[in-house]
């Protein structure tokens, strides 16, 4: 018998060597108790959370929690079924209505996760003989959506309008084309030059899908995403999003004005062949989405936090993923996994949790500590965060 695990030996050995140096496992953190959107107990220590994507801090909103409890009592703990069979409750339709209100569109489809929304939309939309043109730094869910479908897949260099133009120009004019973009790229927290990309995609007759997972809630006058902020609402055919970031629960969706959009419910396999979200989840999502429509003050505070952290870290001498704070993600670039884990551990011991990211999830083989800010981080907390970064950075020799 061939042991199918043999191929994982290099990864197992690398991981064991890292842990043998005495560091904690950056991928084995347990939150024993969660105190608020910004604090949890980790290993008995009160810890500030700076790596959760809980941008708008809706996870402990009293109205959101009350809606979830009421739905749990009224509709039970789960649907035990697919959206197309017994798994669509009043709450699922209400959640789709909330999305239509939020985005000002005709159609909304809720999937069980954001990952499945991309899988379902991309694999469903682009069929045999069609082309998908995607940014090289696209999220894994976009790549997996491509791999799941039967379309031809073409990559262009990250955020390069010229590269996208050239590649679209080489494709058969008569073929169906779907350009897949993201508003915010989650590894470095940089945003896409959407107006220029949209122009090029339209010139070549392509439809456009934009993933706004990391933009919903705080970009644009209505918090719809980077595409709204940049004035591309009329030109993006499909917007994909998630409930697991600004909305504060779990689930995914796609919204569109395409008159035939509803047929996706019959052709997107990740929509059909999985159970729908529990009633409590869609109730919390709908309540949160409607509250996010009027969250101007929270948005302003989140941007203030992001700009302050970016400036503070840069002044200390950290190398960051972007020159300015382009989103609510601030990525600290480190030289290797050992340095990344040692700083990560120093921060955790001081009482701060951030994300570690490494190849192949990162672009250009980078090792990163990723910080994501929350609208509920207070000015005092941001001050504490900067203090911890300064001390841990010096202790580990990352900054002078």
């Amino acid at each position, binding site marked *: 018998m061939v042991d199918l695990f043999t191929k994982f030996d290099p990864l197992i050995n690398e991981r064991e060597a890292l842990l043998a140096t005495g560091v904690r496992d950056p991928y084995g953190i347990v939150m024993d108790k969660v105190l608020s959107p910004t604090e949890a107990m980790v290993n008995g220590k009160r810890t500030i959370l700076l790596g959760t994507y809980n941008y708008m801090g809706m996870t402990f909103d009293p109205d959101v929690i009350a809606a979830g409890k009421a739905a749990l009592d009224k509709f039970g703990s789960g649907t035990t079924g697919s959206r197309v069979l017994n798994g669509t409750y009043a709450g699922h339709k209400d959640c789709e209505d909330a999305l239509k209100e939020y985005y000002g569109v005709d159609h909304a489809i809720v999937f069980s996760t954001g990952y499945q929304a991309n899988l379902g939309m991309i694999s469903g939309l682009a069929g045999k003989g069609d082309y998908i043109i995607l940014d090289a730094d696209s999220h894994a869910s976009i790549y997996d959506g*491509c791999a799941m479908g039967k379309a031809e897949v*073409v990559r262009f*260099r990250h955020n390069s309008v010229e590269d996208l133009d*050239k*590649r679209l120009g080489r*494709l058969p004019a008569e073929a169906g084309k779907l350009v897949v973009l993201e508003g915010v790229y989650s590894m470095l927290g940089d945003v896409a030059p959407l107006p220029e990309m949209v122009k090029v995609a339209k010139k070549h007759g392509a439809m456009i899908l934009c993933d706004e997972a990391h933009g919903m809630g705080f970009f644009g006058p209505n918090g719809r995403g980077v595409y709204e902020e940049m004035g591309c609402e009329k030109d993006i055919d499909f917007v994909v999003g998630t409930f697991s970031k600004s909305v504060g629960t779990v689930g995914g969706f796609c919204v569109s004005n395409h008159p035939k959009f509803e047929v996706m419910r019959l052709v997107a396999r990740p929509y059909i062949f999985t159970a729908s979200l529990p009633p409590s989840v869609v109730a919390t999502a709908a309540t949160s989405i409607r509250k996010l429509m009027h969250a101007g003050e929270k948005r302003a505070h989140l941007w203030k936090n992001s700009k302050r952290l970016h400036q503070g870290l840069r002044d200390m001498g950290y190398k960051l993923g972007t020159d300015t704070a382009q989103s609510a993600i601030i990525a600290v670039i480190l030289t290797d996994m050992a340095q990344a884990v040692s700083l990560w551990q120093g921060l955790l011991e001081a009482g701060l949790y951030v994300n570690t990211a490494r190849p192949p999830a990162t672009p250009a083989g980078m090792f990163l500590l990723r910080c994501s800010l929350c609208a509920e981080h207070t000015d005092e907390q941001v001050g504490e965060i900067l203090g911890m970064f300064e001390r841990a950075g010096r202790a580990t020799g990352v900054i002078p």
Partner: protein
Amino acid sequence: MSDRDEIFETVAEQIAPFNKKGIKLTDATTFAGDLEWDSLTVMDFVAAIEDEFDIIITMNMQAEIETVGQLVDAVAKLKD
């Protein structure tokens, strides 16, 4: 020099900046094994080849290409 030889020469020129160990190139040279390229290097290299020949090598095609010879044949076919 035949068309195929010319393509081989051009492909070899494009490989050079990524050929850190100076491996001698033949049709049988493999990208993952002999040249020890990771997925990021492959991505940069494919983009360079596409621009050099003004072609598209889809990810679906890339999955089938393991050796320099296979790439040269694919480029020859795509150029037609």
